[in-house]
């Protein structure tokens, strides 16, 4: 193995995401990347792999297990610290905002870590964006469902067409300076309560 290559462990349970991370790290250099999908016995797995860098999503509760690795005190164990570049805390902040944390072994030079972390940051920013989009879509879908139910209730109770029912919802919302979905929600809740 080339001396410049790093041994990187990626802790990620989702297979697709793990593959995407591995791909982007390969672009950053010919590194030796191992994915740990099952966090069972994480500390022991990391001891076996003995990585130079560990990448893990900030929202992963198993991050706390890495603190144990940071405490390693036996001479054969390699102490690991969260990568914090005091001269350029911007990078660490960017990583935190993107939702990724990197743990590196003691004494590893900043120039060797930077490309890896940069690549990871880009990838995790993409994940974060995808998550926001997914949540927005989900919320929109849920809203859609409530509005459809409210329309149905109005059509049935007042003998309106679909367009008329929607127009009534929209007019009520405008009169009350509320969102159409809020009015729909109130109507559906009231109907549920009244049985």
């Amino acid at each position, binding site marked *: 193995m080339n001396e410049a290559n790093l041994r990187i462990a990626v802790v990620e349970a989702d297979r697709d995401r793990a593959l995407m991370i591995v791909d982007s790290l390969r672009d950053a250099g010919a590194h030796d990347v191992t994915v740990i999908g099952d966090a069972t016995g994480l500390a022991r797995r990391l001891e076996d792999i003995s990585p130079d860098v560990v990448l893990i999503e900030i929202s*992963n*509760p198993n991050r*706390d297990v*890495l603190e144990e690795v940071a405490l390693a005190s036996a001479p054969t164990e390699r102490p690991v610290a*969260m990568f914090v570049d005091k001269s350029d805390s911007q990078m660490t902040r960017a990583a935190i905002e993107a939702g990724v944390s990197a743990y590196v072994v003691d004494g590893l030079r900043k120039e060797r870590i930077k490309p890896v972390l940069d690549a990871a940051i880009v990838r995790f920013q993409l994940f974060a964006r995808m998550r926001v989009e997914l949540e927005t879509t989900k919320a929109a879908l849920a809203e859609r469902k409530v509005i459809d139910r409210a329309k149905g209730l109005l059509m049935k109770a007042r003998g309106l067409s679909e367009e008329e029912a929607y127009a009534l919802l929209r007019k009520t919302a405008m009169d009350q300076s509320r969102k159409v979905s809020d009015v729909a929600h109130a109507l559906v809740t009231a109907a549920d309560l009244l049985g």
Partner: protein
Amino acid sequence: MNLHRIDCGFVPLVDCAPLVVARELGFAAEEGIDLHLHPQPSWSAIRDKLLFGELQAAHMLSVLPVVMSMGLGAATDRIDALTVLSVNGDVIGVAPDLADRMHQVGVDRNTDPATGVGRALIAAASGPLRVGVPFPFSMHAELLYYWLSSLGLEAPRDLNVRTVPPSNMAEAIAAGEVDAFCVGEPWGSVAVDKGAAEIVLPGSAIWQFAPEKVLAVRHDWAEAERPMALRLIRAMWRAARWLGEAENRLTVSDLLAQPEYLGRPSELIDRALSGRLVLAKNGRPTRLRNFVEFYDCAATFPWRSQAHWIASRWAARTGADREEAVAVGRAAFRTDLYRAALQDIGVDVPGASEKVEGALSVRTEVASAKGEMFLGPDRFFDGKVFDPAETGTRH
């Protein structure tokens, strides 16, 4: 009035109650604070976000500010504890088969519970005892080491304390990765309800008055934003006083049950708040004394002697310079800010900043600014006393 926004992280546990109460009951707003609470997945996440300014304040393990100032852990900086948020509240649970063996061995009821249960646990264990804790730097780990090493177990030879995120604790014990755990509520009760564990001892049986969580801020923030730090302390103190009123308990359970906080049934949360825990699946609730305390007996006061105790335990474990560790560790508990914040509003505060830990077996009146201060029982199970004046500077 324009409210000043403060972003505060918390881990969804029963002992985040003072933060939730400060926000929901308006104690933060009364101090001009718009308190935004953000749930966090892990203690390392909460620490990092505090260090990098995404959060200005955080619900934090009492041990963490002390050891961070000693330079331990994967990220270090000076973090200050403004006030203690909760005292006690941990439980020790064991796997059902281990509990059965403990019952076969028999728990000696003629001694204190921690000694009786501890001896049975050691006798029933096969091989080194593996115990899960939520974080290496925690009161959970401190209590375990104190308890089991005092009863003769030697770490790491016979005692293997390892980190397991609380949300995985029930699975870890069910999968046989650990034999036992020490964890905060509601996670002990969750494991009991799943039939994965039996609760054998509350943490308070090991140390009757152990500081569990603190409100933490960056040291430079506390210095630069001193008026805001004082306001936070006052808001937390009022929230704690409200929490101390027995008639508010059910409201607290309901508040914490909300999806944005714990998102768990209020009945489950109420077990810890009422101190009536179900110890084994389908068992009857059992009353545990001093299970968790938010207010009474100066529970919120960040005693420097508590920080001293934590620092000297860690110095001994890591071989760090004891005097130096104790000096920086004590400074992390901001008795000075606490006093400045509360004396302004006429609250009685302790006259001293440190005390002998483990000396009181009954509620005792002590010297204070107004002479109305009581301290509660704070004994260690083995009867030892920790006097910071004796242990701190001795070479």
